[in-house]
């Protein structure tokens, strides 16, 4: 769970479209806050794996340890991972961590064991306000869009969904979010980018550079009468 304290110096929380969303709370001390220093808010976000439809970590994994399970969740098979950490480098959301204890990569499994037993993930089960919801993805998207409209009618005009739809540079997320501030405030990338979109071009530049260098080498050798 990510917990964000957000109190603007002018007493108003910074909205998603605020011109300077980071101009919050820098000058506000707890003393001023506790003595009526201004209105503010606390934002919270379930910090789970996003279970991307095309996950860079799964793409990167050289051992085949990261798979999509039968629930279409991205899952690390702990008996196969060898701790190469390439998944950590690839994940644009900073989800995966390598354990100092066993040396393997770990992340949210969306409670695979509970799902296999027909139960919902523990976070969704435990959340007292039902902020974390779990279910068929299409139903969740529809519910979330209705909720955004509802919030807009209640004056929360900055509310929007993050990750519910694919963009030009990233697929949709199976764990998507209803946010009321910029993605960066929640520790999410503003525009997630799948690094594999660069792969062919990068290999192309590598091959071109190597071939050009070899041609230059051979040219110098033959010029010298080699």
């Amino acid at each position: 769970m990510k917990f964000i304290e957000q109190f603007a110096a002018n007493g108003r929380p910074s909205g998603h479209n605020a011109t300077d969303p980071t101009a919050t709370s820098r000058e506000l001390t707890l003393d001023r806050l506790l003595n009526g220093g201004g209105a503010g808010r606390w934002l919270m976000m379930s910090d789970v794996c996003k279970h991307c439809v095309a996950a860079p970590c799964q793409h990167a994994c050289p051992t085949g340890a990261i798979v999509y399970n039968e629930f279409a969740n991205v899952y690390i098979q702990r008996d196969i991972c060898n701790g190469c950490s390439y998944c950590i480098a690839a994940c644009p959301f900073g989800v995966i961590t390598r354990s100092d204890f066993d040396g393997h990569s770990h992340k949210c499994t969306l409670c695979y064991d509970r799902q296999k037993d027909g139960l919902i993930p523990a976070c969704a089960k435990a959340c007292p306000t039902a902020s974390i919801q779990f279910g068929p993805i299409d139903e969740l998207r529809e519910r979330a869009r209705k909720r955004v409209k509802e919030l807009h009618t209640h004056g929360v005009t900055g509310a929007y969904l993050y990750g519910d739809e694919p963009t030009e540079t990233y697929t949709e997320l199976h764990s998507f979010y209803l946010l009321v501030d910029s993605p960066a405030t929640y520790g999410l990338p503003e525009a997630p980018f799948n690094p594999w979109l660069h792969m062919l071009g990068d290999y192309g530049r590598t091959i071109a550079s190597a071939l050009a260098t070899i041609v230059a080498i051979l040219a110098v050798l033959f010029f010298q009468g080699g």
Partner: protein
Amino acid sequence: MQGHDQTRAIQPGYSTQDVTKVPGWHGLVAWDLLFNNLTTGLFLFAAVGELASPALLGPVARAAYPVALFLLLTDLMMLVLDLGDPLRFHHMLRVFKPSSPMSLGTWSLTIYSLPLTLIVAIEAAQALGLVPSGSIALEWVRMSAVVFGLLPAFGSLAYKGVLFSTSSQPGWKDARWLGGWMANSALMLGCAELLAVSVLTGHAPAAAALRTVAAMLLLLNLIPTGLLFLELRETLSRIYRDQQVHLAVVLSVVGGTLIPLILLLVGDGVPWILGALLFILAGNLAIRSLFLKIPHASHESRSGGKA
């Protein structure tokens, strides 16, 4: 405690932090990057040289293959030791995923090791008198292994840069020319190594030819280095002070290019050539170490100002 709390400013969410987590790749990986380029560059240069100009470079190439094998084994050891669970290294070979640069690289390194080992084994058997040194059949097998080794050696070289550039890490993800720079610098390193081998084994004509090639490659390497720097400039400026960036550029150009170039042009004896090789190695290790450090430095700078 209360006084501390009262003066503490409240942080504006996560907007001032890097989103990504940094993989625990440190010094060992910098050496891995260097040794990967040393072995693949040496083999590729020696093999291409032997095939293109057997009379001039054939004898030197024969002396270079055992060095390439030693460098490969050192590199593989570093790759294994860097894993979170080194005893599971063989899990890399469970699947072949060409879409994953690390999988492609592991398989390329494994396949590359086979012809290289065969070449060295044939040479060792001939040197020990276990097989006739003039055998046409054995020479045919050896040359086939040289040719067969070219593609996996190139794969072993090419995957490394793409592995980093197709990540989500600050700096690395912007390095479109990293692979191109590595390919070029690996061949430059290979040339410098082969030059050192030729000087140490007394192959004067080969050394004379390789000195010119090495000088040309040192200058040529400035092009991909410049392209790489341009891509990293924005991230480096965010992380480091301008003076630090300028100092790093000057040191890498002077130490890694100009000094070895002067040493190569001034003298052709063993001390000059080995001196040039040392500067080239130091410069290349420094650039790889700095590149590897970028995401770590980015996280540090976000939390505590510029490095």
